[in-house]
């Protein structure tokens, strides 16, 4: 089985370009050498009754109907690239393929007298390069599946995470990549709570796992790692901790281990609170968030204080490697995980992953990745990395961010936010980016 690259469309970004038609012109140019939109295989159509624009483009379906309606075998799904190839020399122009397509992805060109469809420009689509707003993107994250799917998932099936849980995805991706020569610490929180440490004398993890106290995760791992080193065994000492367990209750031992530059891979799954015990606020909970300890009433309007930025605090420990990551940008995360794993052989490596929580933040379980994506695209959760002695590097552009509402509007925990609070949050986001830019040497 193979996963394929794809062209993704974000209508909210397309809307802002006001019918620029850059993608259509670029496609017509590369396919016919003219600007005539007739020759474009991508069409943007106005949304209905003022809704967002829509897209007529071949979806390169997994189980395509156009190929099944083709009597001449001129349409075939290419198993290597996933693209539905059209062979002109076999086509009889019967148009039956257009009956199979629900999205206007293969259409008859009256001038050329035959059908035309998107071929993704051999992996370098012209429309994507021409799009000025990033509404069209060429997604290559299928490579992750193609490269990683044969490695063993080192958590058992059937962990009892909530539907749509981002943390479960992070755990499975991370440990699969780090591999079986690992000792894993999961301090109290959602991660052991969903059963990764096991039930009734069984384990939920296929590597040695232990359940430290909230306060001593980093120090226990440091000791374990030293003992393995003494025995001459190469083992990764890894933590999967929540933001509360890392940044509040467990911060003393975390800070100490980072200061001593212990050889640890410390991954924090930041869902902005103590979600496992009933959604109480933590130090990482963002300003204005509803939680059970920062309720919304006549006096209080969600959390009255700003969140602390644990990743920046860890950077100031001068660790071997510090990075932030998001599951909406999984290729970026895999690169950082590689670097962190390597750094953890030299000393302390810290990864901070934004982990929106459908249950605690109140958004539909299908929207987890979208919330992750908007967090990054609004600069609420900027992606960056830092290597010891170097400068901070942004790994996703911080220029031209979406307004922070695009992120806040997705989660129920910000539903009550008033204009004043909104301005406060936008200011906090701007200030944080300004600070990060200083560390990056950009202003």
């Amino acid at each position, binding site marked *: 089985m193979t996963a394929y690259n794809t062209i993704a469309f974000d209508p909210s970004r397309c809307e802002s370009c006001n019918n620029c038609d850059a993608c259509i012109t670029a496609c017509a140019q590369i396919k016919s050498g003219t600007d005539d939109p007739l020759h474009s295989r991508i069409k943007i159509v106005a949304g209905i009754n003022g809704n967002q624009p829509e897209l007529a483009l071949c979806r390169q379906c997994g189980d395509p109907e156009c190929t099944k309606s083709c009597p001449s075998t001129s349409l075939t799904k290419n198993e290597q690239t996933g693209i539905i190839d059209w062979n002109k020399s076999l086509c*009889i122009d019967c148009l039956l393929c257009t009956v199979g397509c629900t999205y206007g992805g293969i259409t008859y060109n009256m001038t050329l007298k035959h059908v035309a469809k998107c071929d993704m420009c051999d992996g370098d689509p012209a429309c994507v390069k021409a799009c000025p707003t990033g509404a069209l993107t060429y997604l290559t994250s299928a490579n992750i599946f193609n490269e990683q799917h044969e490695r063993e998932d080192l958590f058992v099936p059937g962990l009892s995470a909530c539907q749509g849980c981002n943390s479960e995805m992070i755990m499975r991706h991370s440990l699969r990549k780090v591999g079986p020569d690992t000792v894993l610490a999961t301090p109290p929180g959602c991660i052991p709570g969903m059963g990764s440490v096991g039930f009734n004398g069984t384990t939920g993890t296929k590597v040695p796992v232990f359940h430290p106290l909230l306060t001593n995760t980093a120090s226990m791992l440091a000791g374990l790692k030293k003992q393995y080193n003494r025995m001459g065994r190469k083992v990764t000492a890894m933590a999967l901790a929540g933001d509360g367990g890392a940044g509040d209750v467990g911060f003393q031992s975390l800070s100490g281990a980072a200061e001593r530059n212990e050889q640890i891979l410390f991954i924090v799954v930041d869902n902005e609170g103590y979600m496992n015990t009933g959604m109480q606020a933590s130090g990482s909970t963002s300003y204005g968030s509803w939680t059970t300890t920062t309720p919304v009433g006549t006096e209080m309007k969600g959390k009255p204080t700003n969140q602390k930025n644990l990743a920046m605090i860890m950077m100031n420990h001068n660790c071997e490697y510090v990075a932030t990551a998001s599951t909406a940008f999984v290729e970026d995360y895999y690169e950082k995980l590689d670097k962190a794993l390597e750094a953890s052989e030299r000393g302390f490596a810290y990864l901070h992953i934004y982990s929106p929580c459908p249950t605690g933040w109140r958004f539909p379980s299908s929207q987890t990745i979208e919330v992750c994506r908007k967090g990054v695209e609004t600069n609420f959760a900027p992606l960056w990395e830092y290597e010891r002695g170097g400068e901070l590097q942004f790994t996703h552009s911080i220029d031209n961010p979406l307004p922070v509402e695009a992120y806040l509007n997705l989660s129920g925990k910000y539903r009550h936010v008033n204009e004043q609070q909104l301005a406060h949050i936008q200011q906090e986001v701007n200030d944080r980016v300004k600070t990060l830019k200083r560390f990056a040497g950009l202003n």
Partner: protein
Amino acid sequence: MNQTHYLIAGASHAGLEAVHRIRLIDETASITVITRDAQLPYSPTILPYVVSGQSEPDRVVLRNADYFKSQDVNLITGNELIAIDEAAQQVTLKSGEQWHYEKLLLATGADPIIPPIPGLSETPFHVLRTMQDAINLRTHAGNAKTAIVLGAGLIGMHGAENLRHAGLDVSIVEMCDQVLPGYFDNQAASVIEVAFNSNGIHMLMGSGVVKVEPLESGCQATLENGQTVQADLLLVATGVKPKLDYLKGTSIQIDQGILVDRTMRTDAANIWAAGDVAQAADFYKDEKVMMGILPNAVTQGAIAAMDMAEDEALQPYSGGVPINTYTFFGQQAISVGQSVADEQTETLSRVDDDNQSYLKILLKDNQLQGISSINEEMDAGIMWQLILRKIDLTPVKDAFIAQPLETGRALMSSTWR
């Protein structure tokens, strides 16, 4: 006795889609496919293009031998069912072989109708349903100068055009007053007829044939009006109907075809039917109809297979919608759904005589019933879905009438996310 879990009779669009669907959820059970053709599977739709030489017989294979091997499917060519014993769940093939099945799909297609015209049985003539038919016709056309085509249905029209492309002087004889009756309304049909005439095809409309007789070389047809036409070659294309004699002695109910329910089951246990052989639900009326078109064959093959393989994603057949995408001499006529208005439909049409184009939209309760066009850009698949899903066009009615293409694309694209 040979054993197979799934037995599929017929290897055209319905049968092949069934193989694909079964393997999506059942990777291991044995599948046997039987086709009467000696060749690997091909589409009947391609045959007129084999006649003209545009398509080569060895380049139109829908699935090659490697495909059947990779899917672990046993393909038996040059054989066909001649009897079914439904109680014993076994079939007898023409070769005498017997096969025991757990589940049987009948996707045996249809055969040409030979009209009862006096003299026809004594006169050499062609039909166009199998690859061998196409090869025979092509060979004969190579040393013929003139041709008569009986019937202005899709096979007759495609056949005539492709014989014309092969350089022959062609006459079409049709009983009805219009070409492609039942597929297009008379307005569209007249545009098509004009195009045929202006490309040198003699259109002898509204006239049946009373007599056919062989000549020393070729034949002569005498029409109702007394006119006679002579030609080197005769193609009979007066429709198709399924051959059903192999069902004798079974409890399978038949009318014009094999009667099936909305999951393509016949009245006999463990036997399904799909494609041109099946008579299944109509989309518009509460009756079962023959709908011999390719997209419906694919849909029916998929539904039958999903039911056979107990696929939980099965959705019952929503009924046949007539669809035709007809290209002729570089022009296009497309018709999706109902093509002729009735008293309940609201009809909107516009004609552009300069460009020989026209568009007609039929609505009922602000739902699309049918749309047809000539030489207008049209997404047939989108229109099909708007009809099948009974999409309420009330909020977009003006936009849809003004710009059916763009509005249809926006509607369907919005269902993607």
